[in-house]
């Protein structure tokens, strides 16, 4: 039962990365020079990481759907044009990690 | 090139049938291992040979008539 879930997560990561790469090349025409944080990517990264790591917080939807959607969202930010998306990924992971620690420590 | 594509189609269909047979009918373990070792690579390779790009017909004669034998 576990194994085919991991294939679905991997496929959503790969498809999210490819989409992120294509869309970010359309959006940014230059290599990464200026240290600006993209707000849309930041929101997607935070939502993606929170859904992926803390799927148990939404009991209504089966866990694997939540994790798949979360992985897809954060893969879109992770797979952006090289140089972009680094700070957004780290911030998203930190926020989700803090929620995860609070959840497992408080529980 | 057509001969290659025909042979690839035949091998692809045979491999897919063999894999589906192993999936549905659940034969003995050693049969499943033998089918997976032989027919998984054959299916991937024949799928590649079916889906690969091919040069145009006009260039075909140039490629075989004047091959590069530079040395």
């Amino acid at each position: 039962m576990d194994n085919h879930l991991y294939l679905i997560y991997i496929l959503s990561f790969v498809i999210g990365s490819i989409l992120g790469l294509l869309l970010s090349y359309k959006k940014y025409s230059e290599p990464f020079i200026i240290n600006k944080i993209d707000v849309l990517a930041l929101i997607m990264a935070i939502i993606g990481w929170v859904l992926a790591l803390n799927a148990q917080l939404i009991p209504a939807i089966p866990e694997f759907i939540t994790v798949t959607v979360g992985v897809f969202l954060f893969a879109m930010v992770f797979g952006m044009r090289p140089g972009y998306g680094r700070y957004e990924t780290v911030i998203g992971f930190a926020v989700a990690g803090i929620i995860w620690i609070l959840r497992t420590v408080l529980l | 090139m057509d001969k290659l594509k025909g042979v690839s189609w035949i091998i692809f269909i045979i491999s897919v049938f063999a894999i589906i047979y192993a999936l549905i009918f659940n034969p003995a373990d050693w049969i499943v291992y033998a089918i997976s070792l032989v027919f998984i690579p054959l299916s991937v390779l024949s799928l590649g040979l079916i889906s690969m790009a091919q040069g145009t017909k006009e260039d075909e004669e140039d490629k075989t008539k004047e091959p590069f034998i530079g040395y």
Partner: protein
Amino acid sequence: MNLMAEILLNVLIAFFIGSLLFGLQRKVMARIQMRPGPPIIQHLLHTLKFFIKETVFPKTAAMPFYVVITLILMAIWVAAVIIGPVTHGPLLLLFAIFAIHKIVEHNAGSSSGSPYGKLSCVRAVFSAAAELPLFAVLIIIYLKTGTMDLAGIIAYQDAHGALLLSIPLTALMFIVLIISKSYYFSPFNITLAKDIISGFETEHFGTLRGFIMMSESITWYMLVWIFLTVFIGGLSPIGYLIGMVIVTAVIGLINAITPILNPNHSVMAEVTLAFIGIVGSIAMIYI
């Protein structure tokens, strides 16, 4: 679950994660060299791109061996996936698969008509001296745990703690073996070195090249999987993922820093490390 479905699932997982790990290795090497590097899915995209390009069978290639050798490469690593994650079978068969991999490198080079392929064929024979650590790892694990079965080794580590801590020099020998099989700019990988263009892969282009790259992704996944299972024990899938990322990043670090050794130095370095590993491990077990 159906055995065939499990095999297919594990082969697909091995292919995708192996490709992503190669991409991660390139990213780590690039960041060490202070440049952004390619995206992490780049290796996967290259594999798929080559897969749909035209392949032509050269006139000087030894047919049908030229094509059959790529099938053999994929078949042995599917066998490794069956022995490893699916059935937790005997370790000896996995080492037989490494030996056949060496034979495939040799024959893929000699079946093409190109002189670079033939040079790589000769270098593959030469670098078989570096497979000495393989048998040593097997024998030392047998001396330590009393079993050559993956299931038995996992059970031993559940009872006695990770083998990485009790026989670390054996783990070092295995890491040397993994470095010699890592694809990008490894110090010990003399068969695929850039001074012979692409070694035994030079004359396999287009679809056959994509096919070989797929087999190499499965190879990398299985190498790291065997290392984690044999030296750290049964892990949860998240544990395997984190372990694979760490091992790949460390090997990316090593590849970025070390020079690419010439064949003589490469074999001597591997044999020296194997000697240190064997003598040290036996000393640690018995003294």
